[in-house]
Every structure is written in C-alpha cells, then in structure tokens.
C-alpha cells in the first residue's frame, strides 16, 4: 500500500546543504503497524513529513495506494491528505475553541460533507473512542488521554487508508500511553495500516515491525512480536 524507493531529501543551510534522507527504501503492506525509530537528526521526522505529504522529496519514488505522489499542488496535497491520511500528533493539536465533536468533524467539513451528516459520523467515531458523552466539551475540559482519543477519532473520521502518528504518546504518562496504545492496536486489529514515529522502545515494541533510522539511512528493518498493551492496563 506504501512504496518508497531511493528517497533523498536535503535542506539548504546557508551556502551548504544538509543531506537528511540518503536513499530510503520502505514498503508497507496493508494492515501493518510500523514504528519508525531513531535519535533526533536521524531523519525520521522528515520521512514522516514526506509520507504525510507535508513535505516533498528531492528525488526518489513515493507511491501511496498505487498513486504516485509527486509535484503536488497545495490544493491537491490537501485533498490527498484529507482522503488518504489520518494524523495523530504528539501535542494532540485540537482546535482550542471547538468542542470535541466539532474537532472530529473538521476533516469531514473540509471534504464538503453536510453538517448533519458529519455530526452523525463524528459522533460515531467519538463513541468508538469512548467519548460520546464528552462531545460538547472543549479540549481544555479534557484530560491528556481524552484529548488524544479525540484526536484519534478525528484522524479516523475521514476513514483514511493510513494513520500517521508522530510520537502519539510523547505527551502522556505511562499509564495513559498504554491506554492509547491499546486503542491504536485495536484499530490495527480491525485492519488499519499504522505508521508511527517514536523514540520509546516499549511503545515501538507494541508495533509489529520496527524500522530504525540513523543518519538518513535505514539501519535495521525487522518484524517484532507485538507486545499487547492490554496486559499493562
């Protein structure tokens, strides 16, 4: 479902340039749950940005769901992001003045869905993350774990092919982190493809495959036995 070949990316720094990704090959099949690990500066964030169509590679191939992702206009990138990708952020990134259900409904709004329809769909997803009763609460009235669950519901709302999570548990305590991971594992069990950037070993081990980056190249790519988060909760 995701095919990356010989991906290169460098950033100009003054007169010289910094070569961040030096030929990445990565293939992810439907239903996989992959952790991308690496120290800061390893290029893992850049790789996620490119996969998330927030940034574009200098050279190489990126195919998502049989669609070549190249030279996208901003408009097209926005449409693809909306259609194919669900984002889960470290800092949740909920819109502060919108309540839970409005936040979840936002991607649907940008799809042009009618208000009533998207409210129903958003409520369905909130129910799924167990927060149906909190639908009219503002983000500041929710705990960290609840916020991340709203964010996950939002990422799921448009029924994307691929969930991209950037340190999804980075801002949460261990117990809440495992709750969130348990939920993400459930989504994976249901068939969602998940790609996650993390630097925590225990979180990475809850995935089915770990890709380690160092200095812009893949150092290690191995399948792991998934640790179920449920046993810690």
């Amino acid at each position, binding site marked *: 479902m995701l095919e990356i070949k010989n991906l290169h990316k460098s950033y100009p720094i003054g007169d010289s340039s910094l070569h961040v990704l030096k030929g990445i090959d990565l293939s992810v099949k439907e239903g996989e749950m992959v952790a991308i690990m690496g120290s800061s500066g390893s290029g893992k964030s850049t790789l996620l*940005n490119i996969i998330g169509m*927030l940034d574009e590679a200098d050279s190489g191939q990126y195919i998502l769901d049989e669609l070549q992702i190249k030279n996208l206009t901003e*408009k097209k990138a*926005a449409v693809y992001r909306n259609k194919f990708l669900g984002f889960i952020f470290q*800092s949740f*990134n909920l*819109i502060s*003045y919108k309540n839970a259900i409005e936040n979840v409904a936002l991607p649907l709004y940008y*799809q042009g869905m009618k208000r009533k329809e998207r409210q129903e769909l958003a409520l369905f997803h909130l129910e799924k993350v167990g927060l149906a009763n909190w639908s009219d609460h503002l983000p500041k009235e929710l705990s960290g774990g609840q916020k991340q669950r709203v964010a996950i519901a939002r990422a799921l709302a448009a029924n994307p092919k691929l969930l991209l999570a*950037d340190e999804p548990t980075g801002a949460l305590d261990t117990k809440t982190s495992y709750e969130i991971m348990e939920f993400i594992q459930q989504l994976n069990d249901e068939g969602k493809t998940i790609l996650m950037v993390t630097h925590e070993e225990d979180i990475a081990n809850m995935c089915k495959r770990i890709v380690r980056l160092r200095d812009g190249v893949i150092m290690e790519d191995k399948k792991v036995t998934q640790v179920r988060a449920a046993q810690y909760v």
Partner: protein
Amino acid sequence: MFDRDLWSEVFNSIKKNKMRTFLTGFSVAWGIFILILLLGSIKGLQNGFAKQFEDDASNTVYIWPNVTKKPYGGFDAGRRITLKNKDVEYIKGSFEGSFEYISSVFSRNLTVKYKKEFSNFPILAVYPDYQYIEKTTVEKGRFLENRDIEKKDKVVVLGKKVVDELFKDEDPIGKTVIMNGFPYKVIGEFSDGGNEREENKVYVPITTFQRIYGNTDVVNNIVLTYNPKFNFAEAINFSDVLEEVLKRRMIIHPEDQGAIYFNNSAEGFSNITEFTNMLTVISVAVGFLILVAGIVGIGNILVFIIKERTKEIGIRKALGARPSQVMRLVILESIFITTVSGVGGLLFGTGLLAIVSPLLDLPAFSKPSVDNTTVIIATVILIIAGVFAGLIPALRAANVKPIVALRAD
C-alpha cells in the same frame, strides 16, 4: 456564504480579539461617519442654493446679438451679428419642448402722441408670447394676439404710466395714438406688478414694425422662457446647447464670449453648482483617505491574528483544508469587520443627519441628507475594501505550511 461553521469561526476569531477588532473597526466606522456628514452637509448647501433659485429666479433667457471679438470661419473680428426672424423660427423648430414661451423683440424709441399730449416711450414690437414672458397683467382691453401679427395691424398696448401721461382720466381703449406719423389703435392697457419701468412701455405687433421700419426681418433680441419642468441642471444645459447651436449657425468662434450675449437667470447658480460639486469631490477624497487608514488597520490586525493562529491553520491544512478554504475564512472575517463597522458608521451618520435635518432650514443650508444611492455605494465599497484588507493576511494564511502542525509547542 451562509455556512454555519465558517461564521462560527469568524465570530470565534473576533471574540478572541475583541478590543483590537473594536478599535480597528472604529476607524472604519469613523471614516464612513465623517464621509456621510460631509456629503450630507454638501447636500444641505445644494438644497439651500436650489431653494433660492426656485424662489427668486424667473426662468428667462435673454439673447442679445453683438459684435464678434474673434476672427472665425473666414470672417474678421468686429463683425456685427444680426438675428433675424428665421433664427427665431429655427430655435422654435429645434428646441421644441425645451422652451415654453418665445418672442423676438424689435424695439424703437418713439414719440407717442394723443391729441395735444405727447412723450417719448420705448416701443417694443413683440409676439403675443411676450405677455407671459414679462408676466404683464392686462388691465383693460386685450394684449396682442396672433391675428394682429398676421394682419400686421397698427395696434398698440400701452403701459399704465403711458396711459396716465397721455390720457389722464380718459379711457384709452379704442382711441388712436400717433407714432412717427402713423395712427395706431389702442387695444389694451397693462400693468406689471408695480414695476414702473415696465409700465412705461408700449407694445406693438412685431410684423407691423418690421414692415414700417425698413421692411426688414431683423430682430433686436430674442427672449424665451424654458420649460418650467426643467430643473436647475437641465435649464443650464438647455441654455448651453442653445448658445452652442446659435454660435455655429452664426459662424461665431465657440470661445467668443462677446458676439452673442446670453443672460440666463439660472446661470448665476451654475458657479455654485460647480463649487458644491468640487466640495463633493473633496469630501469623497477625504472620506476615502480616512477609510484607507481604517482598512490598513484591519489588514494589520488580521496579519497579527494570522500569525497567532499559524499553528491552528497548519493543523487545518494537515487535516485537508485547501488553501482557498483558508483564504475564504480570513477574507470573510475581514469583510465582516469592515462591513459591520462601516454600516455602523453609516447608520450613525445618516441617523444624525435625519435628526438634525428638520431643524436646519436656513436660506443657504437646508435639509442636509444623503441619498440611498450614496448609502448603497458606500456599503459596496466597504465590502470591496474588506476583501482588499483581507487579501494580504489571507495569502499569508494560505501559505502557512502544514508542517508547523507537527512541531511540538
């Protein structure tokens, strides 16, 4: 446009920046308020002038031929211009509906004699229309009629003072007076609202005099009144066109001010109209400049808001907001602030004028007001201004990279 979410976001953004939004909106409202007051005051001046025009002025145009001051069309300067019967017929034919009454005048100063009494009087040979142009009142008998003109009869209508001097207490109607050796039958006596100079005159049919004095078709001058339904501007315009046409017909340089003398009672007000028009232009310019200041202010505050909301916009874009959708939000917000505050200033200004207007009815300043067109134009300008004010911030917002959403706070 009536997208509930879009509006709720506009309101949220405004709510978060209440004070700043109010202060900027105020500058727009203030600009419009001043513009409305200025325009209303100028309207008041115009009303004052127009009222004076209607009250005092008669709608008469006098046309006097004179001597050309500029060479033109192969003629030297100094050529004497003469008006003839056919010129009057030409005006009649060309300006049907533009004038109400018209008469050419052929005048002489002659001695009028009745029995032993005689004296010098200005004799005006005219058409029957002249009665209405001069607004003379027939006291006895009748005024000149068309049959007198056709038959070239030797008949006269005498002014009240002429009758007093020649006839004393005698009834003049049906009597005969002698002018230059010819006998004329008195058919009427007129007065003119106490204007003694008018009552000193004698009227005869123009055709009679033209035959007796040189068997000519020359006339000394032309008098006409324009259509009473004409407003001030139409009256001026008619007179201008008439002057242009006559100059062309007489082969006079268009700029030659002395060859034909036009005395239009509306003319005096023409300068005033130009003056108030100039004032209108100036006040629109001033109001516009104030408005520009307000718009720059709104643009400024929006740029600031966008900066504050960079991350939020980044999140929206990561979730699939297209650049156009982000721009729409910002521009709508800008239009909303400019229009609401502008319409506020508009209502305040027109409201103030509406209260003050009935109280102000001075000769030179009467009923200041703004018309609906001005109000509608101002509103449209505000909406357009809102678009412009929002344009730069909107482009900034559209250019926000969604990557900022991934940055940790």
